[in-house]
């Protein structure tokens, strides 16, 4: 099919869907079911898997048209780890039985998904992870701990990378599973953070049994599957284009106009920060345009790094603008670790909270140091650091 034929097919299918299931009169779940069955969940997937087998670039057409029609597309954000990442893993590495079992309930929000890669001992160097999986007949027995797991406490399924062969070098002894988060031996605990909230969980595995039919791809192929997951993460999260004056810089402008100190130096600093944020935003726009034109350049890789640094600067600036109030905690916001359930309530978006939360920006999803290594090595072609763990069995590499 030519690309214009594909676009026509997608648009026609959207027309039919919107005609038969008018968003205003259709329940969200019924709409998603119809959307999945029409092949408009992930248009690039196979027919029957929620796709039409067309180019992934047409996903944008679906999102845009459904959003213009006020159709419910919030399942993508609400089940991001599943719809944004897990689905891509199943499409690339899953068996037909696995795709049939998991994709539809995921898209319909019947089953929430989470992802478990990081461990207390494996952060930036996630391939060094220790979570063990030992074969026992048709089953595997999992032991260990995962951390920074978003949504684990409401998830049905978790994507997990485990170590099945400690005698292999770190990348080679890994195996990937989908585990039932409600299984016996899975203990999910909130992880309280600097802001007093618990956005994430720690997940403990104590002799958790997983059937072999929940293994994704071959034994020992886990690293490749994990890479697919992270590439899908970049597609799902990266390249978001926000409007001018939004986010924390918008909040800083409002704060300045409402209660800022009004001296010339502070005003200039705010203008400087605004300019840097706008430069980042325009760079994201340029990156998206080049991506669309099929000529992606280095501008597509800088956003995460700059956003992290700028958001820290902007939020720190906002707290300073408050003067002595910046040293206090506003009403309705508490730094006390909240109970497990209360983190679901709407957060108080105070400058203090944003300031504290921003510290994670340069750590989560790849630290700024790792991001600079990636820019330096993959974009600029600079040589890597010498590796001391290369070709050495995982069990012999020092850890701590």
């Amino acid at each position, binding site marked *: 099919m030519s690309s214009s034929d594909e676009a026509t097919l997608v648009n026609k299918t959207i027309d039919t869907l919107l005609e038969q299931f008018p968003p205003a009169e259709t329940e969200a779940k019924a709409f998603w079911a119809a959307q999945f069955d029409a092949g408009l969940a992930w248009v690039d997937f196979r027919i029957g898997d929620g796709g039409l087998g067309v180019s992934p670039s047409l996903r944008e057409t679906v999102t*845009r048209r459904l959003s213009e029609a006020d159709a419910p597309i919030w399942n993508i954000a609400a089940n991001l780890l599943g719809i944004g990442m897990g689905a891509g893993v199943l499409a690339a590495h899953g068996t037909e039985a696995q795709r049939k079992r998991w994709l539809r309930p995921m898209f319909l929000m019947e089953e929430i998904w989470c992802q478990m890669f990081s461990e207390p001992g494996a952060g930036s160097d996630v391939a060094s992870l220790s979570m063990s999986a030992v074969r026992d007949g048709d089953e595997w027995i999992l032991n260990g701990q995962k951390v920074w797991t978003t949504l684990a406490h409401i998830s049905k399924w978790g994507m997990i990378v485990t170590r099945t062969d400690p005698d292999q070098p770190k990348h080679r002894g890994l195996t990937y599973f989908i585990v039932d988060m409600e299984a016996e031996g899975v203990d999910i605990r909130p992880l309280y953070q600097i802001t007093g909230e618990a956005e994430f969980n720690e997940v403990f595995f104590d002799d958790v049994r997983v059937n072999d039919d929940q293994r994704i791809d071959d034994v020992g192929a886990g690293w490749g599957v994990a890479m697919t997951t992270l590439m899908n993460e970049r597609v799902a999260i990266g390249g978001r*284009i926000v*409007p001018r*004056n939004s986010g924390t810089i918008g909040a800083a*402008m409002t704060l*300045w*106009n409402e209660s*800022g100190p009004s001296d*010339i130096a502070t*005003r*200039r600093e*705010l*203008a*400087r920060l*605004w*300019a*840097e944020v*706008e*430069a*980042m935003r*325009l*760079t994201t*726009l*340029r990156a*998206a*345009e*080049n991506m669309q*034109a099929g000529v992606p350049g*280095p*501008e597509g890789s*800088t956003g995460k*790094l*700059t956003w992290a640094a700028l958001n820290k600067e902007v939020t720190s600036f906002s707290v300073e603008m408050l003067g002595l109030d910046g040293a206090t905690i506003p009403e309705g916001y508490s730094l006390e670790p909240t109970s497990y359930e209360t983190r679901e309530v709407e957060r108080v978006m105070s400058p203090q909270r944003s300031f504290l939360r921003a510290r994670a920006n340069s750590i989560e999803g790849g630290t700024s*140091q790792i*991001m*600079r*290594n990636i*820019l*330096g*090595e993959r*974009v*600029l*072609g*600079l*040589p*890597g*650091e*010498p590796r001391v763990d290369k070709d050495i069995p995982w069990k012999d590499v020092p850890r701590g």
Partner: protein
Amino acid sequence: MAERITFARTEEQTMLATTVRDFLEATVDMDTVREASLTENAFNREAWGGLVEMGLVGLHIPEQYGGAGFSFIETAIVFEELGRRVVPVPLLSSIMASAAILAAGSESQKEMLVPPIASGESTATLAVFEHAHDLDACATVANRVENGWSLTGTKRYVTDAPNADQFVVVASTDEGTRLFVVDASTAGVTIAPTPSLDATRPLGELGLEDVHVDSDACLSESDTTAAIRKALDVGVVALAQEQAGGAQRCLEMSVEYAKSRYQFGRAIGSFQAVKHMCADMLVAAEHAKSVATHAARTIDDADESAISVPLAKSVCSDAYIKAAGDTIQIHGGIGFTWEHDAHLYFKRAKSTALLLGSVNSYRDRLADAIGI
């Protein structure tokens, strides 16, 4: 609906960039730039001759005034390439002068004055500033005399003054601020070069003592504040593109050196301390490109240029200074020597940030424009 801002170059624009780059690489030896930086009237006549021959001086000037009728984007591309090699040519001065005449002049003045500038036959520049900090101060006066005007005063920080044939001069009159076109050869005109931090862009002082000009030399009978602003904005946007090109070249030099320089048995670029500086330089160069391109594309959009011009000044100035400074650091000792190119970029970076008004003054303008 997604925001539509176009950054992409057309095939012709890409070809223009390649043509100019190839020409400058073949024509402008960095040693000659270094030598020029020891003079008071740096002017690479071979490069200028080539730009003139290719019709690049009047690229964005409308055809009826002798230009090629392209958009400012094409001119911006030329500036990016000039910035990559710190080329001493008076293009900045020329486009600011023509922008002032186009913004303030009558139809007949534009038809008479712009074509020689667009063709490169006459080298013109803009003489605005007198005081280092108070950019609006104008002690130069123009008084009506028989058959014209008499100008007296001193203009300073005039770009390419030592090489200019014509000056577009800002002067105060009883009726308000006006712009006058003054030939360098007119009686009473003195031109003194000013020793400059970045001598590859010569600065000078224009002295005017009872300089008599025809009535026709006065560009407008009404207030010219907006025309001056427009001419300066054109200059700022051209410089932003030059800053982006310079920052990109600094990045390339640094990466090249970090790959080939070995210490402790390793390429220094394999050390994260050096690698991360390069990564930050990449970010700075990419941001500079984005805002400079955006400013070039919106220069004639009154609303958006109120933001995009000071935005470009703010971001590109910091980006180029950072890139040029870090280039010296990454090169270590050799980067501090006269024989290396790094200082040419570093001097250009700092002096460009100071030209046409301080970065802070543009941040004030930006603050006004975004409503804080």
